[in-house]
């Protein structure tokens, strides 16, 4: 890889100078490590971590933050990601509990345990499910948990060998088939009809004694409600399959409709979507699962239980699938979700879904007015799919939007629509923000019509411009090459 030029933003390793340092842990006289640990156990040379002063450290990561787009910066309508505002009081809430050690005697963790217990209960109420585990660390992790429970259920009934297939709609998020494969299942895709919903005939034909589960998102990934869900659930159950709910799109219906009532047997939630725990640049997420009573015996351990002597973690789940992770869960984020539910209450959550759907339909109309095509021309829910006019590429529109200081929508997903743009504004955006977004999109089309060299060269005003992703994949450089640095320590 070419050496860094003076126009390149420095890596922390390039700011490093021998002998510099920032933080100082409590000091002790260093013991005789060779004696205590054994000479053969010691490393030969120290790791080449950066040596920087505290001010240089601060400048580096502050400047990096300035090179990063965020919800706090501007509108970020990624489809199926629910980029809503992250309340700052949640940070204060999490800090109140952050010093608790997971191995502490449970008597000394009664506050946190009670909070987790109440959250288990509240998430069950919101989803219409009978029991909840807070274990999974992400949506995909929740999916795996749910599918493993379904697997255990079929095996317990002597149908484990027979049921080897999971049905997934063709518009499903990639995690759904990937999860099914990790649980040892074969995936069969179901096509959508021209209204964007699951093709009921094709679905019914695909059902059979070999089907273990059907994984659905509702509303689905093109932003429409599966209006025949009750019939879908009935047919699936009649064929002996279990119904799995991917909660990625819960923001459209939270407080108004419960997946349990739709007929789902297992549900996962994405707390980093619907319940506004921060996205953090890609994680950590949190993906609690809820189940109907017939699956409760398979829940992962531990669960938070309320007993006479207080709250504690219990591994007393008769046919548990086992542990899905260390300790009880992503507690820091569970606390944030708890605070959100307490802040809004039921009426507030109903307004969340109401305004999420309102804003999405409003933006759809505005984008239509700005010249974009809407393939499924019907009322959508919290998100919708759009397409630029013929001859304009979604990728180019996205890059041009970056120059406007706004974040593009999700591009090229779902796979069933060519040049797809999936837009989810969320309920926390004002109408002026949505108007400005649609105007920017319209202006991009006008500019493209006048000058067809403009779009493919965008963005022009971002810290870096279009990247050579082919090079990144053909010649992977995945860490800093110390040896190229003159005078580096070996």
């Amino acid at each position, binding site marked *: 890889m070419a050496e860094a030029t003076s126009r390149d933003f420095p890596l922390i390793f390039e700011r490093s100078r021998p002998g510099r340092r920032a933080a100082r842990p409590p000091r002790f006289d260093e013991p005789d490590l060779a004696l205590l640990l054994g000479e053969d156990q010691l490393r030969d040379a120290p790791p080449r971590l950066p040596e920087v002063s505290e001010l240089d450290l601060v400048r580096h990561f502050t400047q990096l933050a300035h090179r990063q787009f965020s919800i706090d910066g501007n509108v970020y309508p990624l489809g199926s990601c629910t980029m809503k505002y992250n309340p700052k009081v949640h940070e204060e809430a999490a800090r109140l509990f952050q010093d608790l050690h997971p191995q502490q005697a449970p008597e000394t963790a009664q506050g946190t345990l009670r909070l987790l217990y109440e959250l288990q209960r509240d998430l069950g109420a919101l989803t219409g499910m009978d029991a909840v585990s807070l274990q999974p660390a992400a949506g995909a992790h929740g999916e795996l948990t749910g599918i493993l429970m379904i697997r255990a259920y079929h095996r317990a009934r002597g149908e484990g060998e027979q049921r080897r297939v999971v049905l997934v709609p063709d518009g499903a998020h990639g995690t759904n088939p990937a999860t099914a494969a990790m649980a040892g299942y074969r995936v069969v895709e179901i096509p959508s009809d021209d209204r964007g919903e699951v093709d009921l005939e094709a679905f019914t034909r695909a059902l059979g004694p070999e089907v273990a589960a059907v994984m659905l998102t509702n509303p689905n990934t093109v932003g429409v409600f599966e209006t025949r869900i009750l019939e879908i659930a009935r047919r699936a159950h009649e064929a002996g399959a279990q119904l799995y709910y991917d909660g990625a799109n819960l923001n459209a219906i939270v407080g108004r409709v419960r997946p349990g009532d739709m007929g789902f047997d297992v549900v996962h939630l994405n707390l980093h979507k619907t319940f506004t725990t921060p996205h953090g640049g890609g994680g950590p997420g949190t993906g609690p699962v809820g189940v109907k009573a017939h699956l409760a015996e398979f829940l992962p351990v531990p669960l938070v239980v309320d007993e006479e002597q207080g709250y504690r973690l219990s591994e007393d789940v008769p046919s548990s699938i086992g542990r899905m992770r260390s300790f009880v869960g992503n507690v820091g984020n569970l606390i944030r979700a708890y605070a959100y539910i307490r802040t809004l209450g039921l009426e507030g959550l109903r307004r969340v879904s109401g305004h999420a759907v309102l804003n999405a339909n409003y933006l759809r109309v505005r984008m239509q007015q700005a010249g974009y095509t809407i393939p499924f021309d019907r009322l959508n829910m919290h998100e919708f799919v759009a397409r630029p006019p013929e001859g304009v590429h979604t990728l180019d529109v996205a890059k041009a939007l970056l120059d406007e200081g706004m974040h593009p929508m999700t591009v090229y997903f779902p796979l069933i629509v060519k040049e797809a743009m999936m837009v989810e504004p969320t309920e926390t955006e004002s109408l002026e923000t949505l108007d400005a977004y649609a105007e920017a999109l319209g202006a991009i089309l006008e500019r493209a019509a006048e000058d067809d060299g403009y779009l493919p060269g965008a963005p022009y005003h971002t810290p870096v411009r279009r990247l050579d992703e*082919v090079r990144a994949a053909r010649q992977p450089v995945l860490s800093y090459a110390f040896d190229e640095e003159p005078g580096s320590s070996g």
Partner: protein
Amino acid sequence: MQIPDNLRYTSSHEWVSAPVDGMVTVGITDYAQDQLGDVVYVELPAVGAAVASGDPVAVVESVKTASDIYAPVSGSVEAVNEALHDAPEAINDSPYEGGWLFKVRLSDEAEPGSLLDAGGYQQAVEKEG
């Protein structure tokens, strides 16, 4: 869109050369490489592996996609194009020559003859597009 006359084709866009001493060469078509975009990596079958017609035996990756390549014929893998490890772009630049993927010793010498000819493949492509 190049579709050489001396090759046979599948509807999943693999090409097969005419058998010579029971051996054929397999690759992907010009249409396929164009659809994929810049190839960044190729996963090839193991030399000596038995392949059955229709099995996924290789993967061609671009930045945003990964495409399964299906064995167009049955037999055993005689050789793979090692040059693709360092220069996967050969598939884009020369899909019918430098970009060949692997060679198969046929278990049935008549099999390639039952595949699409250039005209048949042309029609298949037009229907897809």
